[in-house]
């Protein structure tokens, strides 16, 4: 039961995109078409699964001080593997994802999970966490892409939807639509959970690789406002 919870928490209560607010860049950029969203989500899930397993297995070997560079190298390795697989077996998807495929390296979800979870837990738990978080990311991308594709282009997985195809709101498929739909989705999650969802400030920052620097920044800001 506990193992199952590791997977399901990524889907809703600790959804990486809507609750932890990690990995916003690919979410906004790729969610114009459902097929791309699924492809991106699965690619990120594969990287997350690999990196979580590797980092968890090496957690006692990697010295604490240089852990971030080590994680980045491991993650970049897995991204390169996924990149080559996509190029070989799904060249059309590779074309669609473009720059965002190599950019999985700097996706905060992956480094964030390494920091928050994989370096403290066993290999099996980390693998399940990777799958859960990856599926949560995929699900969010899929929901966003469905909204944007159905209302924006009047299609779903490329299939035309009778009335909407002639009355599409094309701005939703463009950049402003991405920001808008994402904002509305987060507001919806806030509304449903009535603030019960874990606040980013209580949770997200501890896992963020830049937490130390960000903390310094905020401390300085506090000083500034007192003065």
């Amino acid at each position, binding site marked *: 039961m506990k193992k199952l919870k590791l997977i399901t928490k990524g889907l809703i209560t600790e959804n990486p995109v809507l609750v932890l*607010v990690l990995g*916003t*860049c*690919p979410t*906004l*950029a790729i969610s114009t078409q459902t097929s791309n969203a699924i492809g991106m989500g699965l690619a990120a899930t594969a990287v997350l699964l690999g990196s979580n397993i590797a980092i968890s297995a090496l957690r006692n070997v990697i010295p604490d001080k240089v852990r971030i*560079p080590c994680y*980045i*190298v491991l993650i*970049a*390795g897995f*991204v*390169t593997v996924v*990149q*080559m697989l996509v190029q070989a077996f799904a060249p059309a998807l590779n074309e669609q994802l*473009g*720059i965002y495929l*190599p*950019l999985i*390296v*700097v*996706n*905060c979800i992956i*480094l964030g999970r390494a920091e928050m979870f994989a370096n403290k837990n066993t290999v099996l738990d980390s693998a399940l966490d990777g799958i859960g978080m990856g599926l949560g990311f995929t699900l969010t991308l899929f929901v966003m892409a469905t909204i944007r594709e159905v209302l924006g282009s009047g299609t779903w997985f490329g299939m035309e939807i009778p009335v909407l195809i002639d009355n599409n709101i094309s*701005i939703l498929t*463009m*950049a*402003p*639509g*991405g*920001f*808008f739909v*994402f*904002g*509305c989705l*987060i*507001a*919806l999650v*806030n*509304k449903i959970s009535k603030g019960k969802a874990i606040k*980013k400030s209580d949770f997200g920052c501890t896992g963020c*690789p*830049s937490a*130390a*620097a*960000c903390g*310094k*920044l905020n401390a*300085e*800001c506090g000083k500034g406002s007192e003065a």
Partner: protein
Amino acid sequence: MEGLLHFDFKGLVIILMSAVFVNNYVLQRFLGICPFLGVSKKLDQATGMSIAVIFVMMLSTAVTWPIQYYLLNPNGLGYMQTIVFILVIAALVQLVEIVLKKYIPSLYSALGVYLPLITTNCAVLGVTILNINESYDFAAAMVNSFGSGLGFFLAMVLFSGVRSRMEGGDTPESFKGLPITLVAASIVSISFFGFAGVIENLFS
């Protein structure tokens, strides 16, 4: 003189203008959203962060472009691009931090806190990879990096202004915080559509 005559000034200006306005990294390409949402609350922070980003973007392009063309491509190691680039950027940021701390403490105290945040900024890795994908030559790559950084700066500064106005607004409970910020970003992003026709007609 020959070299100067071949210098494609017009092409470079077009690259610069389109990097700043049309293909704005934050608002059109969705790169570097995290710092855009996180550090744009105050104007001075937004400025400091953006200047650090411009600096790191240009520096990492200056290093990664020769690596790609003189080291990776001749040896058939093009697939190592992602790993090599992220390592170079991470090392470079560390190096800049150390050098600034030792030799230019005043600049370090102004920019130092922003530097570690930049390593995982996807805009920096994005600009180096895009420079290679678009097969820019070295001058064009540098101009593109500068333009992209400048575009980031413009978006950050504009948005910090929008956010300071937003603070006094009466926001619905569920929209408080991030959601209303995203909706505001969406409106700022629409305003950049106005630049779409400008670049094509700049020299006609």
